[in-house]
């Protein structure tokens, strides 16, 4: 039975046609808002864990390096001089490397107008050492002499490279003492987006998890003022969405675009794709507490099982190179002479047989939120299967992965995949020490490996690096050789930093020493 109703087909066609027409016209008649000339619009995935520069130890470094300044900035690899002056204009060290003197910049002020002086430097370092997430970088610092307002003298308990440490991404910012006092009284002081910095930008507004607006600090000491007085940053975790925002013109620059889109960007005349070395390194920890992984031969066998070329290609999408241990290329004390494992299936089988291992089953965990790990870890399962090892792979949130690994090491995972990077540009103090030095309670040494000879090499190298960098390098290289032979970890790849830069703008080069950061004061329109 048909329904004869008031909707005549002609009328319905009319309505449908009008709707489609409206839909199409809407896209043309609605004007785009005129671009504000002094606003540079950015999208990034960088979340803000904290606005406290003393506690900061995560991706908020993206913003911090524009708001706060250390004494020195470390220049990218290969650039001379090695450091650029920030709040210190000159610095010297004693012959024994235990006393460092920094002359402070005249006329530098915090965002409230108060001067940057030695008292501020001392208060900042004391706070960082006492409560900072990266406070360990000041381990060698015994005392700070701030008797002259324009000079700080750092007295160390052992020789340490204070120029390098003072230029750290984390724990080395100079903070307004008034802010430090305010934070001591109110732990939530920073959370609405206040700052106590002296950098070229100050926080104008912050909408948690959504946007950050920075405005230029008019009294900043730099002779050249930023070309953009406002930096409007949208926090967009999804890389595809970020890409859409940039290509549709909603933002001027997206810092996080998917690696899979690089080919299309290379073909697009509006963009340049650039590749840099980065401090990011993928490593797996074997659980050395459990049999048969407590046997180095078994660990070597598993290391020989992997197809590193495939893992590098799939994980890094062509923007990665096989690692030589846990120290990424381009970061001290990387050593190109350290050998690498390669896929040798028969050798791997022989090693397993010589260790008397049959029907081995292992549990592999990785961080599910890391898309690179999600891509390459299944390849590891296939590679292990080829030598008769059954790998149960589990993708869980990093916080869960880490928590489980620390809770009960003897019954935890067999292989823990992690992406790691050093706190500052010294992977000896960080990667080599944090990842594989013995510890009573596991923190980042999740292979639970204990080796007194390795510990001594790394400890001695750390103490030597402030006065004899070459000597320290030798010790570090010996330690890395030990890591290769003993294989407490499986060394996967060094990830490259790939950036898509709109040709319309001149954007400062990526600096490996500040891997999460973008320096907006140097952004300008291309000539």
């Amino acid at each position, binding site marked *: 039975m048909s329904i004869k109703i008031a909707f005549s087909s002609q009328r319905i066609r009319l309505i449908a046609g009008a709707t489609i027409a409206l*839909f199409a016209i809407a896209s043309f008649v609605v004007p785009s808002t005129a671009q504000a000339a002094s606003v540079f619009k950015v999208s990034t995935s960088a979340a803000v864990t904290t606005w406290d520069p003393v506690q900061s130890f995560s991706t908020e470094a993206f913003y911090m390096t524009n708001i706060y300044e250390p004494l020195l900035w470390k220049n990218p690899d290969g650039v001379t001089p090695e450091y650029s002056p920030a709040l210190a204009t000159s610095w010297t060290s004693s012959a024994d490397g235990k006393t460092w003197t920094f002359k402070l910049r005249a006329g530098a002020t915090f965002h409230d107008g108060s001067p940057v002086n030695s008292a501020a430097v001392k208060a900042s370092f004391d706070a960082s050492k006492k409560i900072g997430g990266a406070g360990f970088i000041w381990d060698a610092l015994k005392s700070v002499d701030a008797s002259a307002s324009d000079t700080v003298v750092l007295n160390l308990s052992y020789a340490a490279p204070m120029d390098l440490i003072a230029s750290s991404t984390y724990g080395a910012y100079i903070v307004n003492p008034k802010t430090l006092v305010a934070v001591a009284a109110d732990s939530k002081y920073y*959370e609405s987006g206040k700052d106590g910095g002296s950098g070229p930008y100050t926080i104008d507004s912050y909408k948690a998890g959504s946007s950050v607006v920075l405005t230029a600090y008019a009294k900043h000491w730099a002779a050249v003022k930023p070309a953009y007085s406002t930096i409007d940053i949208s926090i967009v975790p999804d890389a595809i969405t970020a890409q859409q925002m940039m290509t549709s013109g909603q933002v001027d620059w997206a810092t996080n675009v998917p690696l899979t889109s690089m080919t299309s960007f290379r073909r697009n005349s509006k963009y340049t794709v650039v590749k840099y070395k980065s401090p990011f390194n993928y490593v797996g920890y074997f659980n050395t507490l459990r049999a048969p992984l407590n046997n180095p031969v078994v660990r070597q066998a598993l290391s020989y099982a992997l197809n590193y070329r495939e893992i590098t290609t799939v994980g890094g999408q062509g923007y990665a190179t096989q690692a030589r241990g846990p120290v990424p290329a381009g970061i001290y004390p990387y050593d190109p002479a350290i050998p690498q494992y390669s896929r040798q299936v028969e050798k791997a089988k022989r090693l397993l047989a010589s260790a008397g291992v049959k029907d081995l089953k292992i549990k592999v965990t990785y961080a599910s939120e890391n898309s690179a790990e999600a891509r390459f870890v299944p390849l590891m399962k296939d590679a292990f299967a080829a030598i008769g090892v059954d790998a149960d792979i589990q993708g869980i949130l990093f916080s869960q992965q880490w928590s489980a690994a620390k809770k009960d090491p003897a019954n935890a995972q067999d292989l823990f995949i992690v992406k790691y990077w050093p706190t500052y540009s010294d992977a000896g103090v960080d990667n080599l020490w944090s990842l594989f030095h013995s510890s009573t309670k596991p923190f980042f040494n999740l292979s639970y490996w204990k080796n007194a000879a390795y510990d001594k090499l790394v400890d001695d190298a750390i103490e030597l690096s402030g006065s004899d960098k070459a000597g320290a390098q030798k010790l570090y290289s010996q330690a890395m050789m030990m890591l290769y032979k003993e294989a407490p970890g499986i060394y996967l790849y060094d990830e490259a930093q790939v950036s898509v830069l709109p040709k319309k703008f001149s954007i400062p080069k990526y600096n490996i020493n500040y891997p999460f950061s973008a320096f907006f004061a140097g952004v300008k329109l291309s000539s």
Partner: protein
Amino acid sequence: MKVVWNRLSSALLVLIAASFITFTLARVIPNDPSLAYIGPKATAADAAKLRITLGLDQPIPVQYIKYVWQTLHGNWGYSLSTKQPVLQEIIDRLPSTIELIFFAMSFAFIFGVALGVYAAKYRGRVQDSVIRILAIAGVSMPAFWLGLLLQLLFAGRLAWFPATGQFDIDLKYEHPISKVTGFPLFDSIITGNFTATLNGLHHMVLPALTLSAYSFGLLSRMARANLLEVMSSDYIKVARAYGLSERLIFFKLALKNALPPIVTVTGLSTAYLITGTFFVEQVYAWPGIGGFAVNSLLSIDYPAIMGITLLAAVGYLVINFIVDLIQAKIDPRMWLR
């Protein structure tokens, strides 16, 4: 009145059950919330200190009772990832989500019912088949996939609509919206900022279309099936035999009786859209509850997850209650059931 009390008391039970289950689940998952709060490189000592500060060292029942007590007093806790009060986060973001749901549901209802009626009229013909395909596609396509597809086509290729956001970023510098009610699009209208209104509507099209797809499909199928059923019933035949006009039969007799199930589905769909926005907002970087919910889930930000669960549960219950009231108005026999 008794029916109302019954509904309210069962709603309260649902709320208690939902909150307790979510609360317990969030705590038994092997995870260290302190990491979300102070970052992945936090020291063991910092993490232990924070666990005491957050009360995570206490037994779960004690934590739950404290949570309920504080929630009733307006303290929904602090988000571990944004460090802001959860209630404030929700209040700040909810208006944008409600505006999105309003447009999505309006679109789904108007076009879903209209096309359902149209399909019923042309049952078995090409028009019916086309509408059926559209409806099935709407119901079966995952929102995040449809969102990406529309974004790629209409924002990326054709550049007809903006890819993301609720307004152009430049708008806040050139034509800032004065906050009156907190609903940005509505505020732009009542303050006469029509540049912002047009810009907001332009931004609304793709996310609203994406979000409406499921409800559109459901409503069009429901409208078609119901109308066909009602139009074949005896009282319609009698009305025809009496010579009543088709317009009168359709609007006064058929549509009214076909409406109650459509209203129910509309209500349920609206409630479904509360969680449906999660993916859509993520794809379109919409500044509402959805993006906040997804980020909270990914970081196991349990105070935020609890807040969002409570909000969703309350939303479902309120909408269902309203649907009951509307149905009772349309068909008073409902009170007797």
